[in-house]
Each structure stands twice: as C-alpha cells, then as structure tokens.
C-alpha cells in the first residue's frame, strides 16, 4: 500500500517537475526564434538604431571625436571630462576610449544577426525584408567606416595599413579574428553600400530615423571622398543633390536646428526622452559652463580661436546663430567670446527640437550641405577638374556668409572648401578626419587657457602615431591574433 502511494506521488511529481522548473524571462525571448517576420526584423532594426544613439557612438563620443581632435575646439580647464580626447593622453590601458571598440562591435553583431536571419528567411522563400536588409547593410557600412577611421591610418595615407577586423557575420564565442587592411575594410564597406543601394532603390522616400536610399548614396559619397575617389564621390553626391532634399535658406538655417527631419536631413537619428543622455548629452558637452544656471553644464568643449577667426571672416555669417558666449572672462567681465555651440539643444535658444527636454535632440548624421561640399571638393579634384562646378556647389553653402564674395572658377580652392566644411559642419564630427585625410597638420589652441597637454605637441602632423587609437587592452588580452597587431606607439 505504502509503496503504491509513493509511486503515485513520484509519478505526479515527475510530470509536474518539468513545468515547475520551466521559468521564462518576461522581458526577453529566445534569440534563435525572435526574428521570423518583417515586423520582427523592424523591431531588431529599431534596437540597432537605438544602440547607435548611445554615448559611446553617435549619441556623443563618436561625434566629439572628430571635432575635439580637429583643432576647431579647445578646453577651458582640464579634468572636466573627456579631455583625454583633446590631450591625446590615451593608452591601451587607460583612457583607451574602449567604448568605441566594444559598443561598435556589439552593434555590428546585432546587425550581422539581423542580416543572417533575414538571409536565411529569404532562403526559405519569405519576402518583405528588402528594406530592412538594405538598411542593415547600410548601417554596417557606416559603422565599419567610422571604426576603421578610429583604429586605422587614413585610406589616403596608407590603404595597406591595418584597419579593423572584417566582421560581416556573427562569430562564435571562441573566434579570434585579426585585423585586415584599411583597403580591405573600405572594399567591404563599398560592397555593403552597393548591395544596400540596390535593395533600397525600390523606395526612395525619406526615412525618418532610418538610413534610406539617399542616406546610402550619401554614405557612398562620403566614403569615396575619404578614398580620394573623387569621381565616384562626385557622382554619388550629385545623385543625392538631385534627390528630394533641399538646402535651408540662409534665413532658416539657424531655426533648422530646432526642427526634426528638416529638409536637409538625409539621415537623422531619433533621440526621444528614453534615449536622452541628459546631462551627458552632446548638447551639454558644447554648452557654456553653467549655461542658464545649469550647474551640471561644465563647459567641456568650446570653439578654438582658429575656428572663431574663420567664422569671423564674416561677422554676419548666419552660423553665428548657433554659437553663444562661453565662460571667458577678464577682470570679472565676460569677454563675449562666442565659443559655446548650441546645435544639439535646438539652436541658441536651447529649447530642444520639440520634445520634452532640450537634450532629447535628434542627431543629424548626414545633411545635404555636406553633399554640396563633397561635390565641390570632388569636382575640383576629379580626374578632369571642373572649377566652375566646384565654385557653384561651394557657393550654395557660402551664401550663409552674406558678406563674403562668392567663389569663382578662378578663386575656388581646397582651402576654401575645407574652411567652409569647418564652418558648416562644426560639431558634426568631421574636422579631424578631413584634415588628416588631406594630409594637413592640425594646430591646437592650447595657449587659450594654458591647460597642460601631455599626449601631443601643439601641432600634430597627419602621420602622428597617436592620431589613431590603441586597440583596448581587454581585446589584446583576449585575442592573441590582435595582440600582435597593436597600433605602433602603444
């Protein structure tokens, strides 16, 4: 009798045990079954786009990198944060800015996961994924391009130098890839962009918050410019210019920073209150110290004298409208130095771009203005240079300085175009890369407040070793292949 009871109890237990022990999370799902429909792919793509808005990527640091190191910015005081970007005192073990590496490859893994899932669903005959795949490929190209610019020598300097690992598939935990050359990275970027272009071509409408067809073309123009392939750059830039986007009129330029999805926005990342970086947002990093009584605004970065002089060529330049006074004082009086920048808080009124907080501001990653400037530079440097066309493209942007004489076929020059890029794209992550791709030295405004700088001289040459970042020590420790490929000088 007792034995029977025990048997019954035991069998009941055996059945219920497996249910009892099946505990599932409520915020996550099994990744292998998570993408099955175009809607699922959209959700995964949303996740990717959100990750791009993080502080390590386009939400802040990746944008700051191109400006802080490019001579157009300086610092008022050390120790406020991220001054390593300015002082170049990075090493593999400290101030490595390893977030670029870890976050970059984390997002690339997400993109690869999405691409692989879509491709296998397509192999099963499922359809409706072309836009998602095209956007994923475009994101992969853009991130790879930005990472190879951080870790590899400029393409125009040495395409055979080491770039970053070629990661166009998901990797198993044990895999340890080495770096490939900068040239190979650029080839992969172009492959992705071209495949993306053909997939996206079916729907050319502006995609708010996602990289659509024209974002893809614009990236092709940007990448080609960085390869000094001026003819391709020109053709892609022209294709974008011919598209549905229009330049802001000079009178509207300032107000455009308080708008989402403006007429120039070819690719804009959406930042709402969930993604808002608040006091550590890009907007905060460019504000004046203690702007509007905000004690958390530390005045991290402000325009250098060189930039202010450049923009000062025309005191009526409309682009002064996003600048504001910085903390410079003499004998207790403000010097009225217009070193603070309000592009990322909705322009100088700093009221944001229509969301709850002034810092929840979309990041404008690619604007039509840049395409005109690429077209100008590319036309001037094409195999058959066309100075007339170059001047024409440049003048469309130069109209924003009403007192400056328009460029002509005789006066247009690389210097003029690069100066215009500096004025127009200030704070948008370009200056440093532009200077070194064109083999120009960069001078820093260290004498502004005499802040000690340890990692570089006042002027750096384009081949300075520290112009590229060290591979973070954690990667060196975990990856024996890359351990042998650390950048020189680290």
């Amino acid at each position, binding site marked *: 009798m007792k034995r029977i009871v025990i048997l019954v109890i035991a069998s009941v237990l055996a059945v219920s045990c497996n249910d009892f022990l099946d505990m599932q999370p409520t*915020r996550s799902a099994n990744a292998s079954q998570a993408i099955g429909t175009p809607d699922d792919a959209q959700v995964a793509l949303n996740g990717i786009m959100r990750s791009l808005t993080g502080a390590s990527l386009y939400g802040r640091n990746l944008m700051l990198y191109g400006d802080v190191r490019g001579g157009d910015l300086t610092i008022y005081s050390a120790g406020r944060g991220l001054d390593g970007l300015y002082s170049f005192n990075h090493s593999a073990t400290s101030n490595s800015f390893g977030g670029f590496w870890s976050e970059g490859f984390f997002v690339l893994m997400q993109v690869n996961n999405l691409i692989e899932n879509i491709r296998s669903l397509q192999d099963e005959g499922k359809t409706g994924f072309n836009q998602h795949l095209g956007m994923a490929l475009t994101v992969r190209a853009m991130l790879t391009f930005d990472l190879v610019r951080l870790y590899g020598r400029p393409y125009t300097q040495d395409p055979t130098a080491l770039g970053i690992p070629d990661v166009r598939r998901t990797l198993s*935990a044990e895999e340890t890839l080495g770096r490939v050359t900068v040239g190979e990275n650029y080839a992969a970027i172009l492959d992705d962009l071209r495949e993306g272009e053909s997939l996206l071509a079916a729907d050319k409408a502006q995609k708010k918050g996602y990289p659509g067809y024209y974002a893809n073309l614009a990236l092709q123009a940007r990448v080609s410019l960085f390869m000094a392939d001026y003819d391709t750059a020109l053709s892609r830039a022209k294709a974008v210019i011919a598209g549905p986007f229009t330049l802001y009129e000079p009178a509207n330029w300032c107000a455009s920073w308080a708008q989402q999805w403006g007429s120039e926005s070819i690719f804009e990342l959406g930042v709402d209150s*969930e993604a808002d970086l608040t006091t550590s947002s890009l907007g905060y990093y460019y504000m004046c110290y203690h702007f509007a009584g905000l004690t958390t605004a530390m005045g991290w970065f402000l325009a250098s004298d060189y930039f202010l002089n450049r923009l000062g060529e025309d005191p009526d330049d409309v682009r002064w409208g996003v600048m504001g006074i910085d903390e410079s004082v003499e004998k207790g009086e403000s010097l009225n130095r217009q070193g603070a920048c309000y592009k990322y808080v909705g322009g100088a009124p700093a009221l944001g771009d229509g969301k709850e907080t002034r810092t929840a501001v979309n990041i404008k990653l690619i604007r039509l203005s840049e395409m005109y400037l690429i077209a100008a530079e590319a036309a001037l440097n094409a195999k058959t240079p066309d100075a007339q066309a170059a001047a024409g493209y440049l003048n469309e942007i130069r109209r924003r300085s009403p007192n400056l004489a328009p460029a002509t076929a005789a006066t247009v020059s690389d210097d003029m175009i690069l100066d215009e890029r500096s004025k127009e794209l200030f704070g948008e992550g370009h200056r440093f890369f532009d200077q070194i791709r064109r083999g120009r030295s960069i001078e820093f405004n260290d004498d502004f407040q005499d802040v000690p700088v340890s990692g570089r001289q006042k002027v750096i040459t384009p081949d300075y070793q520290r112009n590229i970042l060290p591979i973070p020590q954690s990667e060196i420790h975990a990856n024996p292949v890359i351990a042998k490929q650390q950048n020189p000088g680290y």
Partner: protein
Amino acid sequence: MKRLLLTVALATEGILCLAQNPTKTLADTLSLDEVFVVAYGTAKKSSYSGSASVVRSEVLQGVPAASFEGALGGRVAGLQVTTPSGQAGSMPQMRIRGIGSMNASNEPLYVIDGVPVNSGDGGQMSDYTYSTNNLLNNLNPDDIESISVLKDAAASSLYGSRAANGVILITTKTGKEGRPTVRLNMSVGITPSWATRNYEAAGVQEQVNMLYTVFHDYAVTGQGKSEADANVAALNRLNSKFNKHGYQFSTTETGAYAPVTISEYDHSGREGRYFDWDDAYFRTAVYQTYDLSVSGGQNGTTYYASLSYTDDQGRLRMNAFNRYSGRVNVNQRIGKLFELGTNVTVSRTSRSGYNDSRNTGSNLFMQTRNLLWGLYWPTDYKTGEEWTARYGSYAQNALYYDHEWDNQATTLRTAITETAQLHLLPSLNIKSIFSYDHTTSAESLYYGANHFNGSSVNGRIHEFRTLYAKMVSSTTVDWHWSHEGHGLALLAGFEAEKNTTDFTRSTGENLPTSTLHTVGTAGTLSANGYSWGNSMVSILSKADYNWEERYFLSASWRRDGSSRLSPDTRWGNFWSVSGAWRLNRESFLENVGWLNNLRLRASYGINGTLPSDDYGYMNLMSYGNAYMGNPGSEVVSPVNNSLTWESNHTLNLGLDFGFWGNRLRGTVEYYNRVSENLLQDVPISQITGFSSTLRNLGRIRNSGIEVELGGDIIRTGNLLWDATANISFLSSRVTDLYNGADIIWYDPTGSDDRAQFIYREGESPLAFYGYEWAGVDPQNGKTVWYTNNDNAPFTFNGRNASYDYRDADEVVIGNAVPFATGGLSTTLRWNGFDFGAHFLFKLGGKLYDGAYKDVADDGYYWERIRAQSYYDDMWTPTHTDGTQPALSGMDLEDSMQYSTRHLHNATFLRLKNLSLGYTLPRALTRRVCIQRARVYTTASNLFTLSSYHEADPEVNAFGTRGWETPLGKSFVFGIELQF
C-alpha cells in the same frame, strides 16, 4: 524537540562569549550531549560527524549593528565576515572557508527555522545611489536563539546545489512551558568618531603650496617658461581658482617650492579662516534599540512573541536605518500524535543612504578627503547666499544640495512558516514545512529641480517596487531505531521552492513643486517593469548509524533540479559520507580521568553552487531598447546550453577534545575544498560582440586548518574567567583555468575598478596584478618602476627599471588571502560583574588601497586636495629621502596604475567589542518583581593595531579599500530586564 533546544540555549558552548546567567557555572552547561540545529534536524555535538560551529544569541547583544552578521566576525573558525561600508544598514560579506567561485556567489545559504531565505542586496536603488540594502536586516537579532555555521560537506550537502559556500542556519526563539517570561532590553549608543584614521587631508596651507608647485612645474617643464614667469603663471592659476572664494595668493620667491602666502581677496573677511567640511558633514551618530518579548507556555502550547525597534544613524547626515519588527512563534501539540508550529514575522526596515563609490559629486566622505578645500565655503562671500555652483574640484556643496534630494528604501517582509509534525510512531516522525515569504521593497529617489542631478529635467523622481515572493514546501520523514548498541536514523524528504521577483519602476520628470515627492505630480512620466524567477525541486535523504555511541557513520544524498540550467543539465546529485570515532569511549582510554572527550571525525562529499543568473543558459533577445517610441530588441547573451552548477568536493578531518572536566576544550580541523566546474566569465574577443562568456571550467583549491580552543582559567566560587580563541589558516590556489589562460578582473565593489586581480593557475584566487613600483628616485623624485622584463632604461637597486610604467610588465604583486584569521574572546565574571573582550585579527595577506591614488596624486593639475601623509612623505629637492614621488604638473598617470605602491600588509588586530556589565543582586530586584536586571556598556572598534596606517585595515572580502564610508567607533549603554 523545541523544549530540548531551549535547555540547550541556556548552555554556553566552548566558543561562546557572555553567558546570560552568571549564577550558573560553566561546567554545568558544557555538556557534550548538547543538541544543536543541523540540516533538516538536530544533532548532539558528541555524535555529529560533520563540521559545524554554533553561535548563541548572546554575542549579538550590545553590538550596534542592524543585522546579526556583523557580530559573527572572529567568532567562528573558518567564517570570515567583512564589513565593506560603515553606512548604517549596509551589507556585510560572509566567506566560509575561502573563495570557491569566480563568477557565482561566494555568500553562504541562509536558512531560518528550516526555510532557505532571500539574502543579499535588496531592491533596485543601489544601482542609482551605490549603497547596499541588506535584506537580512529584516531579521531582528534579538529574535535569534542560535546560529549554526555548517562548513563541510557532511554538514551542508543536504542543501545540495546551493551549499558549496557553506550554510548558516538560524533558529529563532521559542517559549517553554511554565510561567511567562517578559524580557525588555533597551540600549542607546553613540558613534562620535571613526575607528581609525582615514586619509586625513593636509592643511590648507600645505594644499595651496602643493597646487602651486604643480602649476609651477607645468609652466617650467611643460611650457619651458622661466622660473619667474612660471611663478606668475602659477599664482594666476591659483588666483583664478580661488579669488571667487575670497582668497588671493602671493609669494616672495619664484621657485617651485616657494611658500605661498594666503590672504583675503576683495575684503572677503576670510583671511586666516577656513571652512571645516569634516565638521559640517559628519555627526555623532546615535543608535538605539528596544526589544520587548514574552515567552511561555502551558497545556501543550508554547509561544514566543516579540516587538522591537531599532534606529541606527550613520555618521554622514544622509544615512540612517530603522526597523520595526514583530514575531510570533507558537507551537501547539494536538493529542499525542500531532504538533503544529506557526512562525510569523513582520518587519519593516527603512533606510536612506548615499553614494559609497568613487564619485566626485556625491560621495561626501571622498569629498572631505580629496575635493573639499578649506578655501571653499558653503556660502558666497559676496552675497552671503548658498554656494550652488560645482566647486572647481568637482565637489558639490552638500550642505545645500542635501536639502534638494532624498532617498528612502523601505522593505516590508512578511514571512509565515507552518510546520506540521505527525509523530506516527515513537520512532517515526513526518514533518511538513510550508513557508511563504513575501518581501516588498519600496524605494524612492528624488532630485529636486535645483539639484544638479535633477536640474536638466526640472526635477526627477524614481519610485521602485520590487516584490520578492518565495514559496518553500518541504516534507521529510525520519525514523530511528536502536537495538543492543546499534543506533540507526533515516531521513527522506521532498522539497520544492519557487522564487519570483517582480519589479516596476516609475519615473517622473518636470516636477511642479519641491514639496511633493511623488511621481504623480510630474509632467513627464516613464516606467519600466518586468519579472524574473527561479525554481528548484529536490529529493533528499540521510542515514546515520552508530554503535555504542562510539563509532558513527553517516551518509546523505540529495538530487536537485534547477530552472537556472537547461533541461539537459539541470539535474544533479550531491552527497556526503562521514564517520566519527569517539576514542574516549574505548576501554583503553575510559579510565583516563582527565580526558573526558576525544573524538576523531572524517567526511567527504560534494555540494554545489548554481549560476547567479536565472536565465544564463539561454541565448536571449531582450526588448528594452525602444527607438522613437517603437519597441527595439537586441541579442544580449550568447547561448550556453552546457552551463551547469559548480561542484565542490570537500574532505574534512577533525579532532575534538576536552580535558579536565572539559576545562580545556577544543577542536582542530583540516579541510581540503576543491571547487570544480567553476563558472568562469571567460573574456573573449569583443569582436564577437560580447566581452565575455560563461563557461564551467575553472578549479580552485582551498585548504586549511582551523583551531578552536576554549578554557576556564579561573573557576572558583564567585570568580569565573574563561577565554576562547579561534584561528583559521587558509591556503587558496586557482589550479585550472580555461585553456590555462589568465583572466584579468577588477574588484566589482562600487564599480570603480579600484584593484586589478588576475586568475592565474598556481596563484591565489585573490592575486593582485599590476606593476611593481620601485619607489622614488632620490636624485629627482621621479617614480621608478621595475620593468620585470628586458627593458632597462637604467637599473635601480640592481634591477631593470624605468621611469615609464609602459616599459614594465604587469606581474602578480600580492595575495589578498591572509595567512590566518581569527578571534580571541575572554569573559570575566565576579559577583554580578561581567567583563568581556572580543578581538578580531588577520595575519598576513595584502590589502590594496584603491583610494590613496586620489589623495597622493603626484602628477595632476586637478584642483584636488591631498593627504597629509603624502605631503609629509613626498620628495622635494630639500627632502630627497621622501618615499612618495615629487609633484609634477605633467598629468602623469603613474599614480593611477595598479601597482605595489598601493599595496600594504593586511595584518591587524582589533578590539572589536569590549563590554562591562553588572547584574543587580536578585534579592534586590525581586522586590520590584524583576527576575533579573543587568546594566552594561559596550565599546566597538575601540582600538586597532596595524602596519597599514592610512585607513581602516578591516577591508572588504576582496582585500581592497576604496571610498566607502569607514567604520565608526561606537559606545553603547544598555539595560536588560527580565520579569
């Protein structure tokens, strides 16, 4: 059984401290037949073959701590208790027999009255305020009858896959039949100061001189200026930093070490006056506790009921803890066969804390040592208004901002345990326990619109609710039999447990007023919420056999299935075998009069540790990544189907002895604990998208010897003096790693990466890793590094050395596992007076000071202050035998490197508690119906001896010190009344 326990409770076992009843002699109570609580039952000390120590409630008395854990330090051989933070209500760390896990928990399993309970850090707010909230604070220490610490496999394997780190069994008080006993304990304490020095800052004059030197050096070395120009530049820098605080600076010489004259600026009236931030931020903390309990019983009913209130302030103004707690334990016999027990406890704790990590804006302790100049004032000298701007050093004026924020964690725990027992036969007993434990943690964190954390959104408030529900059902059958000297006891059981945690957060931003701190008033709302959980099903069994109470054999087996592992790997077997031999029962020793106990024990067995992540085996796609109001997903963890529990193989050999009527008694134990299949967070190439993956690969071996000794030194009529001591020697080695590859990791405390460790085969599991600091070059004051490789820009003390740490290789620089730890206690009783002292000590091992780098920074131009010890010891051209590097303006990163510069000998001896009590003569108190009245005073952390002088040597379980609030020196006055 419960009755039996109570008689036991009045006894005092060898390792115990103050006995409650001084009229009883110790010899009466030191029975070898003492019964104590073990896994799923009780055992007699004399017949138990496992390794377990018992601590009675008396040691918890008069110790001003929110939870019982802190009082266990130095009481049990092999149990190391560390208190990382001196904040009221924060969480101690417990380690039984070393560290057996790299990735999963190293904390023991806590079992209260037969039911495993939630422990650890409760709620979610610690992610925001960086201070811990110990869930076990909900247990009123005064309700505890006894604590058993289970150490070896024989003692703990019945708890299976959670027992590898040992088990702490807590038994709460019960009543006994007879007249009711009412107890009232009241105590009040103060903590007027810290227990030790803590990075005392140099004076204002010294600070100014040092910053001047830094600026001067930058101008000369960095910019190639002349001495005179550098002097001007440095004074300009100082003036521009401190003019706004009403000071200006001048020198009569131009050198780098010229003394700087500080004078008032702009008629500020601050000449010669500096603000004392220490005094402004720290207070004399007050502690008070009141316990009232009634116990008794008749006609088959016994009861214990208690009510208690505790209030514990931290020395920093934002930190306080209080607890209301009530408990009813009732036991009812129904007829001859049935017995029903109900334990109900309700307790509410409330705690506010502040950032304990290395944070310039919100860690006030760090600010007083590193950031707050005496030149800063909380008011503006020009306007007299409160200073609200961030100071140049990045400190904030908390005297202003502490009115602009608050935080509160309120935890309400309700636990009901029903125990039904059926005494079917005299030898057969069926016992069923069902327990429901519901803990709600309600937390709020408010930053007003004026606060620097709330200003960007015009005020922000977070409210968190975390609901922990725990259901445990356990049924055991035990049967015992004896015949002609043979004794046999069998136990079999089934157990199921389910834990769920529900979490919601609501956040409100843009608050209309600073007086209402609720989400409901906010202009912008956001929320988050999800739940997680785990479950376990187990069968368990045990057999004990003895022959003539002379030879003992035991075996246990448990099978656990856990939801934390994949269906393929989730079931595991855990077992132990043990034996004991009571030698003094043998004929050849029976007549040795002075020997009353001699026993040999041996055990071997396997238990385990589960992964800490509920879903660690799954390849998860998480949905917390919304984009522009649309849901977003991301892959958050790589798949790991083979994940399994860690297993722990422990061999234990023990010898128990008692001589001269147990006047000298003790235990010596040897153990070898091999922890295998350790979960390793194996660092992987980040190119994969992840930085690490979990693998069951590592192996750690802990072996050691533990000695517990107790003796009655004087035992005359009214003078009793006893002393006990325990010491544990521990040797820990990592023996196997994934592919033999090193793993570099960082102390997770406070997420500030304060110390760097390496797991390397053959090294300790707490091996510090970093550069070897050679000291200071007496020629120029520069930091010298031993390169530990072929790089040799020069040699120093005959070894390859460099001024640049980048030339050097990192090496294993020390071991945080001490050679030995232990405690010493002594009690003296005379005519109603009782005196007790309890010492805690640690011998050998290193501690890593992760905070000194901030207060002894030689090369940074940050407007921060430095320690007096750095000022005294730094190299200068006139002090060339200085042991700390010269100041430099060149933004050196030397002091920030993990190196032997911050490594110290961890040996210390601390007088943890000193108590003096007096029990009023009974004849006197009886007249006012008081059975017993005792007044006492206790002092905690009264003195500390150590070779490390900078701060408190009682460091955390990782052997590191950071910017946590230090421990205080406390004095408690109390009265105990029993009616």
